[in-house]
């Protein structure tokens, strides 16, 4: 059984690569082993991460690497496995979530602590470069009316939660339900599973089906709809600084310098602006990333 499956997989892979090479010969190097200045940048399947991957690739190209992007890799354990089996060289990551992935018992939440802990927890063979000041973290938002009624911080939620419905991605209760009760004494009337900061979460908040929504700080929907972000004085959500996760033998020092320059150039506002150009102005990821690389001489 196993053998048939393996044969099937290999056959498929062969066909795939055959199709791929006949389709696009545009500078894609077939050698992805990391030698000879070739590097593959992976990305998860959402706009911001795709933009970051293109920015990384652009900066690496300018530093003399032959960089290609493999978008939409998806979940974190797959990304890490793909780095380890050398199908990828670099991926843009988020410090807090990455740390939680490597260390399930993590309790740190501030930007510096998370990054310091992350550096010690990354598995052998992999590493992280400089963290950027740019962050994309979870945030609870409410409509302006709700905010005007006196809810401006998660500390204001408390007993009011009993009348409020939260819209958040399906995994939210598992991660935060107990934590928000512990820190802010908040138990929502109901938690509706929506999507990860996407149209459904936003539409349900707009239509009043939910009163609180879990979005991400770089989301262009927040400003577009006049939503108010609730402060998180007790740091329930850990810091999520953008940080390159690399396979150590994939890049030379020149590559490290290039990616550290990217991290230095990025801020949360700039990142949000890049995301807006793709999500709202419907520009392409490649063009938006290329502009950023050019403007910042990366």
């Amino acid at each position, binding site marked *: *059984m*196993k053998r048939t*499956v393996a044969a*099937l*997989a290999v056959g*498929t892979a062969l*066909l*795939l690569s055959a*199709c*791929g090479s006949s*389709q*696009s010969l*545009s500078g894609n190097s077939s050698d992805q082993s990391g030698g000879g200045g070739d590097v593959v940048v992976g990305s998860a*399947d*959402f*706009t911001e991460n795709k933009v970051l991957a293109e920015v990384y690739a652009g900066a690496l190209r300018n530093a003399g690497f032959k960089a290609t992007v493999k978008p*939409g*890799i*998806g*979940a974190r354990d*797959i990304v890490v496995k793909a780095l380890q089996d050398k199908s990828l060289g670099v991926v843009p990551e988020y410090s807090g979530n990455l740390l939680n992935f490597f260390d399930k018992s993590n309790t740190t939440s501030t930007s510096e602590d998370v990054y310091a802990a992350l550096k010690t927890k990354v598995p052998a063979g992999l590493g992280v470069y400089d963290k950027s000041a740019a962050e994309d973290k979870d945030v609870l938002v409410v409509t302006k009316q709700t905010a005007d009624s006196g809810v401006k911080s998660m500390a204001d939620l408390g007993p009011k939660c009993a009348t409020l419905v939260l819209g958040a991605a399906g995994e939210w209760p598992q991660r935060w339900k107990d934590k928000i009760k512990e820190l802010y004494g908040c138990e929502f009337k109901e938690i509706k599973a929506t999507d990860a900061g*996407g*149209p459904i979460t936003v539409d349900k908040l707009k239509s009043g089906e939910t009163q609180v929504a879990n979005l991400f700080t770089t989301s262009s929907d927040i400003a577009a709809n006049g939503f108010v972000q609730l402060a998180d004085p007790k740091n329930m959500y850990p810091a999520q600084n953008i940080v390159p996760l690399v396979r150590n033998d994939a890049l030379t020092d020149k590559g490290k310098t290039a990616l550290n320059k990217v991290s230095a150039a990025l801020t949360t506002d700039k990142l949000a602006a890049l995301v807006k150009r*793709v*999500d709202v102005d*419907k520009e*392409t990821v*490649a*063009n938006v990333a290329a502009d950023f690389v050019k403007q910042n001489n990366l």
Partner: protein
Amino acid sequence: MFSDLGKYLSDAGTRADIGTDLVDHIYLSLLPLVFGVVVAVPLGWVAHRFGRARGALLGVMNIVYTVPSIALFVIIPVLIGSQILSPVNVIVALTIYTTALLVRPITDALDAVPAHVIAAATAMGFRQWRRFLAVELPLSIPVLAAGMRVGSVSNISLVSVGALIGTGGLGGLFTDGFSRRYLPPIIVGITLTLVLALVVDLLLVALRRALTPWTRVQGVAVQ
């Protein structure tokens, strides 16, 4: 609306990406069609030949065909030990559907080969295997082709669901368009899916005609 579509398609990078999605879509839907035929023919022969296996086999095929694709896509890795987000899952799942779809008509077609034809072939010295390959199987090509037409349309439409597990060919255009509230990628994805289904259908019809010259000699009634 149309100006949006024009703007979306005006970017060369976007067009190249759509091309890649389309190529993925083609192999993700058509490989299973080929694999399905390869698996279904022997199974159909078994069901035709052995009365005992017949009921069980056709029953299992009916149940398998009932399982929704999104469910099958994620159950496959449990059964065969593949990665949960691997394209192999989509290919295996669609192969299973194609097989489930084809076994019954193939069985019926083999059943329906007239006894005098088989007797004639035997009298001409055909052994069992050669007779199957040279006489019985070719006679069931029209049925097989009809089944493949249904299977190809179904596979082409189903591949997109794979976008939810990371391998969806043109389905990626739907998730992209939805998350950005942007209709052009969705419209392009739906249009290309329909066109692809139509083209493959026409090709299968042409293939069947090429492989069954005798049906044309007998007359147009068959078509």
